[in-house]
């Protein structure tokens, strides 16, 4: 029983952990918090593995845990403190995210509220439909649409500015 649980869970972690981490990173924008969220989600998944694997909805379960964990994290008092950037600190060179990717889109994404950001991530990174997103978040499709619209309005200027020089991809 334990061996079955461990085998299935390990196979899932090997195949999906990087994807989960990236999604968490897009949600929170912090590598350490992203790792915390993923660890928490996978620990919960291990407990619920028999149920989640039987329902064939492991991804959906983990998605919900990640999104809710991120939302819970933002509600914790110590998360309300916004760290300030201090240029005098010795910082390592950015790895992975290229300078051109760390552009205005990334900045605009981080300026979104948590609920709008999770809608953007679920719909445009995870590729879910409005209904799937609504089911994942436990809200109505109308809420998903309105939050998507509001989020994209804020990203519009960035997207249009970036899209126009590339040949009018509208």
């Amino acid at each position: 029983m334990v061996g079955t649980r461990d085998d299935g869970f390990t196979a899932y972690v090997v195949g999906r952990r990087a994807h989960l981490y990236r999604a968490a990173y897009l949600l929170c924008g912090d590598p350490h918090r992203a790792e915390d969220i993923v660890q928490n989600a996978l620990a919960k998944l291990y407990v619920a593995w028999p149920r989640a694997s039987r329902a064939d909805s492991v991804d959906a379960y983990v998605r919900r845990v990640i999104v809710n964990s991120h939302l819970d994290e933002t509600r914790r008092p110590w998360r309300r403190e916004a760290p300030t950037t201090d240029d005098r600190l010795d910082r390592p060179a950015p790895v992975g995210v290229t300078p051109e990717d760390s552009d205005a889109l990334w900045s605009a994404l981080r300026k979104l509220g948590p609920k709008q950001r999770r809608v953007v991530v679920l719909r445009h990174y995870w590729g879910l439909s409005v209904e799937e997103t609504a089911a994942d978040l436990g809200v109505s499709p109308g809420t998903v649409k309105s939050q998507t619209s509001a989020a994209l309005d804020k990203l519009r200027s960035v997207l249009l500015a970036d899209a126009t020089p590339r040949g009018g991809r509208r």
Partner: protein
Amino acid sequence: MTDGADRFLEERLHSLARGVPVPVVPPGEDVRRGRRRLLRMRLAMAGATTGTLAVVLGITGLTAGDPKATEVPPSTQVPTVLPATPSATPSDKGQEATPGSHDRGGGDDPVGGAAGPGTDRGADAGAPPSLDQVKNAPTAEVSAGTAQHHGVPWVEPTSAPTSTPSGLPSGDPTGDPTGLPSGTPTDLVTPTPTDPTTVPPPTEPPPTGDTKVRIDRVLAYYNDVLAEHLDPDRAGLQPYDRRIDPKATRRSDGQLFALGATYRWERGRALSGLEIMVASGWDQVDWDCGATYSDWSCHVVDSGTVRAEVAIHDGVRRVAVEHADGQVVVVTADPTYDGSHRLATSDGFGGSGGSEAALVAAASDARLILPGRAPQAPPTIASDAFASAGRAALLSRGETFTQTSLDRSPAVRGTWSGAAGAGGTLRWSARPVYSGGGFSCLVTYLRCTTVAVGDGTTVDVALLRTKAGGGWLVQYDGPSYAVRVYSSDRTFPRKPAYAFVTRADWQPARDATP
């Protein structure tokens, strides 16, 4: 936003995510964290279940012995539970019907009273016959000639019974239980061996000095000493059980003045009590011999080496021995301890267990001492001499005194009358100072003064309020005794009382090395 912008956003998001460096975490780490979380959850659930079970069993235990508990009468109870599990095995019933249980603490025992026989008793006695029992009762009669052994499957009777069985099945169940026990009843009724109720016999006598005193161990030691004299074979005297055997202590200002217990003496179905009280002095024991109001039959046993006082009343025999250090040991053999009065008064202990000689030998055992730094009582004052000296000192010519009570504390009480028709209550007494007999001005005193009577000796004088009896009170707190004279008549002369209370005769001192 257009579809192009949507696609562009998706491409940019994926491009952004691909650039995120993913930390390398072995999957085993996630498995380990998951296992720990799973273990925590299971432990929490087990704890919550145990707690809930404990609460339910506690409530059941509290209501099991209450005849007014809200329980559905058997006639209206629907037998919906089939005895598929062997919860009512004959062995359980045998345990339930064990006679002669004199466990006085059984009602307070949460294990035995709630989860053990109490619960089973309530279920077996109060519940109506279950469906299996009802069905098996006529079946056993019908198939008695064909199926005499266990394990024969139940055969459907060809005709339904015409009358409803009215009584409980009297025989043992004929069919084996078909189901396996699903619960873990041993977790509920197994006694905890780590919490013995019987205090193990100590190997050393009670500690003296400032050593920490363990009362239960001392009482167990007393029990062993008594057993050596009264019941060497332990045929009747039970070991000290701190949950059952009542103990008695007298403390003041952190000091232990008296310690005792009543042990069980079982003989067949009879239960007697063997009580011991080790006290610092006579003032700490209830001993009525020598008092005018005593209804005990008292006599003295003096063997030359041991002087004991014996008191007998209604079959209860008490022996008191004053040891060399002033401590008093009282051993009481009470054959009517359980209140049933089933025994002849002298037969409760059997053999020589409760005999006078054995009790004297036990009470005079030098190992029976108060533990710790025991307070030391002064030597006793002979009550008769104290009474006669008081009469001679306090009364004048022509006055008469009628003594109404005398006890061995000592205290004398009576009424005096003068030639001119005056009179009132006159009382004089002496109380040991070591146990708190010193003077204190009470609220019932109208006024308290200190009077110097010469040689630096002072006495306390108090005038009592009318509602407290009026009169005056003179007291002298000496090194051993606080001697007091009280008169209800304020006109009674006080100066003889000053001289009486300050007499050196009333301040005996005990040798440092008895």
